[in-house]
């Protein structure tokens, strides 16, 4: 199965793009002097050999801002993705396995939160917090508002496994619901859950960017969304300072695109019907 993935050009493209951003986030601070505090020049200085991507409205080096922003965005993405995947998987697997009333209640709850726009819930929650909006808290909030997709997707898979023989055998052998779900259903869904996690990570990164665009971003870190928000608020667009927003947009798009491509490629490999 994994050999199939490595032969898939789309998967290789997506994975290498994503790895590239990951490596930049991890290792750039070792080679570059990442400083998001010191003013190194005038506001919106164009790119030069010294500052590759110029400066922002405060005169701070854009490359530093971008590296810091990338690190925060990936942090939010992974944390939010993990939370959303765990919550969604638990609800989906349990509902799908149990069936009956439990399933009905969980499905109704999932659909309910699917219909209510998660951005709205995000706005309501973050605007109620005056001070303590840290990066990790934002990630947690995002995770708690975007789990619905994974719950829905996992439930369908779990329900189809319910009637399998090995599950019935486990039940006869006296396993409880917990044992059956963890030992006999979850292992079959692992590849699926991994795909869900990838999508949820992309959603997390995009949600953070959206919420920061509204001025509800983290107070304690630079994020890609916050760079964009500051650039728009401080008239980078009308000043023609493309270096203040285009690189941040490219980074967000590349990460989201890479993750989507990985997901689609995995779907193609795991679902033989789409393969040609």
């Amino acid at each position, binding site marked *: 199965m994994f050999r199939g993935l490595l032969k898939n050009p789309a998967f290789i493209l997506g994975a290498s793009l994503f790895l590239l951003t990951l490596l930049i986030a991890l290792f750039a601070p070792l080679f570059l002097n990442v400083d998001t505090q010191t003013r190194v020049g005038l506001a919106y200085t164009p790119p030069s050999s010294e500052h590759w991507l110029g400066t922002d409205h405060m005169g701070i080096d854009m490359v530093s801002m971008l590296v810091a922003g990338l690190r925060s965005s990936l942090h939010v993405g992974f944390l939010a993705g993990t939370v959303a995947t765990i919550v969604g998987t638990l609800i989906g697997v349990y509902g799908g396995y149990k069936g009956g009333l439990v399933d*009905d209640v969980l*499905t*109704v709850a999932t*659909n*309910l939160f*699917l*219909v*209510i*726009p*998660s*951005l*709205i*819930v995000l*706005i*309501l*929650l973050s*605007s*109620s*917090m*005056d*001070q*303590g909006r840290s990066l990790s808290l934002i990630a947690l909030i995002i995770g708690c508002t975007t789990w619905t997709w994974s719950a829905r997707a996992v439930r369908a898979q779990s329900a189809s496994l319910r009637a399998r023989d090995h599950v019935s055998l486990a039940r006869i052998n006296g396993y409880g619901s917990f044992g059956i779900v963890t030992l006999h259903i979850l292992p079959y869904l692992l590849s699926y859950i991994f795909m869900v996690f990838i999508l949820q990570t*992309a959603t997390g990164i*995009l949600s953070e*960017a*959206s919420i920061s*665009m*509204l*001025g*509800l971003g983290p107070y304690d870190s630079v994020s890609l969304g916050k760079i*964009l928000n500051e650039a*728009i608020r401080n008239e980078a*667009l*009308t000043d*023609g300072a*493309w270096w203040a*927003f285009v690189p941040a*947009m490219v980074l*967000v*798009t590349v990460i*989201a*695109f890479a993750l*989507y*491509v990985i997901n*689609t490629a995995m779907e193609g490999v795991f679902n033989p*019907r*789409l393969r040609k």
Partner: protein
Amino acid sequence: MLANYPTLRHILGRAGWYFITFLVAVTINFFLPRLGDANPIDTIIARASAGSADAVAQKKIAESYLKEFRLIQLDDQGEIIRDATGNPIKTGLAEQFASYLVMSLKGDLGTSILQYPKKVSEIIKDALPWTLTLQLPTIIFGWIVGNLLGALAAYKRGVFDRVLYPAALLASAVPAFCVGILLVYVFGIRLEWFPAVGGYDDSMVPNLSWEFISSASYYYVLPFLSIFLIVLGGQAIGMRSMCIYELGTDYVKYAKLLGIRETKILLYMFRNAMLPQLTGLALALGAMVGGALITEMIFSYPGLGMAVLTAIQGNDYSVITGCTLLVTVTVLIANFSVDILVGLLDPRIRAAQGGGGK
């Protein structure tokens, strides 16, 4: 009794479900903002009474605000009920919620904090038409064109697919706000083909004259394109994989063997693949509207998105919750309509037993 009217039963079942969803949305809308540590009423009371040193006057100002936002109990005449020491009695959270529920069902969303004493419903009344005329046609049009292109890509494959598919994938992966910013920068500021921000010419007052409408449609182009492209990309991808699935089914193979015309087979396929796409639309609507709201903010379009943004910047909680409630209700109504449409188009749903949230 309803057993003989499956369509009606379907509609009623969905209506019941959406009503429950509405109640949950109202509850969320009331309690979430009160979870945090921010206290906007105290802030405005402090701001308003800062000018007067007189303790009695300060107390009076505080009471008038508390009365306005219904944080203290009133009798039938609207007078403040006082306890034995003359202090007003605070309203409990449960009572606040009850009055909030009744008021929002009546359409009264309270008073703006920032633009006091303007009503939230007035602010929304000005913004809502802009949001509706921008988002409704754009999402519907994007859905139709996206599905047509997706079906074509799946059927034709070859070069058409190889160009369209990555393009659609990219369009759906580019975050809504990035498309917006790029369009503003390239076509609004660099090339100056279209106005970059706003909903109409600043020198005009909104009215129904020909000049105003033509000015507004000129400003409409960029935000429209921005939302349209994203919806189109996402839908085209969904429809493509849906149609590839349909292409493998027996009825398509059989129809091909019978030598039925291509366009006719495409039509069969389209009808079958369209239903899951419609259901998908209902589910994705919330996310789409969220993205479109951010697009509005980037273009400073005078709709709900901009109202929310201004409110967030000024900590105007009553406007924030008013707008969020309205957006949620609009999404619910749109969802309900799509659900009904699916029920009318899909004979299987009409035949299925029971309603429920599935």
